[in-house]
């Protein structure tokens, strides 16, 4: 039971087989522009991600990221504008600092930090967005699906 969750260092797809499920929180002024540009270019991307657009990345609460993981979502990406270029008067600074604190917490409980990408100003062009999604997926492929993580404790209780 526990052994299926071991990371396969050869980079082969995890036991689950399906494309990892990813939620992308993108602000409309940078991340979404990159996504739109990637779309116009017909960049072919893995189909497992869903975008939730927000007006500003500062709207994204850590609880939503945590809730995403607890629902069995394998990866979360938060895209905001460049740290010097937030239209909402550096609101993204606070987001950066606050969400950055999620990493030590996730690491403590064993949720690999490769599952959570917090990135500012790196996705407003089509190739950047495309590259970001592809590389994130590459990182995820090496990890067991999140379902297994929250599912494993239910098995402990004999409920699976």
């Amino acid at each position, binding site marked *: 039971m526990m052994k299926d969750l071991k990371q396969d260092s050869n980079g082969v797809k995890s036991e689950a087989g399906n*494309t990892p*499920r990813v*939620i992308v929180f993108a602000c*409309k002024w940078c991340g*979404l*522009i990159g*996504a*739109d540009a*990637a*779309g*116009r270019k*017909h*960049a*072919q*991307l893995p*189909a*497992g991600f*869903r*975008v*939730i657009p*927000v*007006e*500003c990345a*500062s*709207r*994204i*609460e*850590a609880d*939503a990221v945590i*809730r*995403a993981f607890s*629902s*069995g*979502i394998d990866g979360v990406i938060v895209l905001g504008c460049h740290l*010097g*270029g*937030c*239209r*909402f*008067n*550096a*609101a993204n600074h*606070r*987001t950066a600092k*606050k969400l950055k604190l999620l990493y030590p917490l996730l690491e403590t409980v064993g949720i690999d930090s490769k599952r959570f990408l917090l990135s500012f100003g790196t996705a407003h062009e089509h190739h950047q967005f495309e590259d970001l999604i592809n590389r994130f997926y590459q990182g995820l492929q090496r990890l067991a699906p999140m379902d297994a993580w929250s599912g494993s404790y239910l098995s402990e209780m004999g409920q699976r």
Partner: protein
Amino acid sequence: MAADIKIGCFLCRCYGEVSRVIDLDELQQEIIRFPWVAFCEIWDSLCLLENIDELTQKISESGTDRILLAACSPLARGDVILHALERHGINQASVELVDIREGCAWIHDNQPKEAMCKARDLINMGLSALKQREVSENQIIVPKREVLIIGAGPAGMSAAVSLARLGFAVHVLDRARNPGGLLNLLKRIAPEDIGAEEDLHGLHKAFTNNALVYYHPGARLISSNGSVGDFAVEFKTGDNLHSVRVGAVIIASGARVMFAKGLYRYTELDGVVSGIELERRFLSGDVRADNVVFIQCVGVRDVNSPYCSTICCPVSLKHARQLKDLNPQAEITILHRDIMCPGNILEAYYRDTMQDGVKFVRFDLNNPPSIVGDERLEGVNVFESVTGISRTIRADLVVLSSALVPHDDAARIAEIFDLALDPLGFYQVRTLMHPLETTRNGIFVCGSARWPVLARTAIVQGEAVAMKAFALLSQDSLAASGMSQFRDRKIAHAIVDRDACTGCGNCVAICPYVACALEPENGAFKSRVNIMRCTGCGSCVAVCPNGSIQLPEQNARVIGAMLKNAFS
């Protein structure tokens, strides 16, 4: 409320662009089975003019108040549709645009099965978001058509005169007793080469003679309340307290001349003076000197003050020319790290000065010149960065070019108006192409208060902010929903559930626009949002410990519903 929601859905084929990858008919069959969906239609396009008319007709006939459009990206034609619907009276908050073209069909051309799953999920997310969405409150005010201007230097005077000419009353607060600001300390104004006593562009006369300009000399700003369209400001002149209600505030408080303490033996040797001191000497009488050395970049363009003070080079050129006029035989050398004279007028000024025989010697930041002389000034030793030669230039007068630094009152004024100062101490303006507007709506900044500028530029900036203030206040009314910093309409306003609010103050601390404030209530504190200031960024929502502050259009239940329905 959520139980009675009936949503009307429109799926767009985009003339085949979407339908060749995603089977819209199958999607339609699935969608109409949901009890909260009133109808689901497939159209070839949604964005053409005739489409909009038909859309609005269909929507009003069907009686639904929530619409889902599954079409292209908002950046493509999506926003066009939304704006057009808005003009036909359909609130943007009641329409959800789901991108199944750039966001689905076009990036998963090669995976039609997965694209279908994703389209289904995206539409589910949109439907669930619509069900949870609420509408923000709004506020409409009639703006006060008076403006407060802080400072009566060239920028302040210019703003005042421009606004007065447009029929707006302006209150001008001046710390000094006479208008003119730093111009009052000058003999000549660079690069005009005109005397300061001559009225700069007739500005002084226009300022003093215009009945709509209320000049308050010797004023001190005390407090300010309110927001754009209606600021209540208190100030004192002497012992008298005044109160004004204005629609906008213009900060034109200027900058201060730096005191070169500890640099180049300033105040130790008689022969070492500052640029502003030299100016004073010109005002009180002629200055004769045979050997003059100017030192530029004094106390600026280093790691502590990494900026160029703009005025120092033109001013030193001006002084050099004045000295040459008085004594054509004088040996004048300007020691510099770069001569900053942009534009054609200043460039010509520089060339003329060189042709007059003034010498220019370049030194490096790491190897500044040093003053030679124990009791009396003898000269200046400089390591020329171009030739690599070190030499001493004879001098009976050394002029340290005076840089401009932030005004000593800047922090206090910023505190009163909840403005931010940049790391150097000048007023901070909004990012991205809004050079004269602060992050507080209705408060503008111009002249050297923002950045050191020459008098001519200060005047132009004063005219510019006057136009911005005029454009803002001449509207019949100001709606909170329109007081975005960069959009025609805000997405939402934050609202506090006062029963749930614990008064922790997180929202107050984090709001980039100082829009939240705590109010005492029964021994506890509750937060309240000033919606004229709120821009709908959502920072407060993200830090509220129990979700008592929300953006109605994108509240926590919307996000939660989208997460729940993201993967079927």
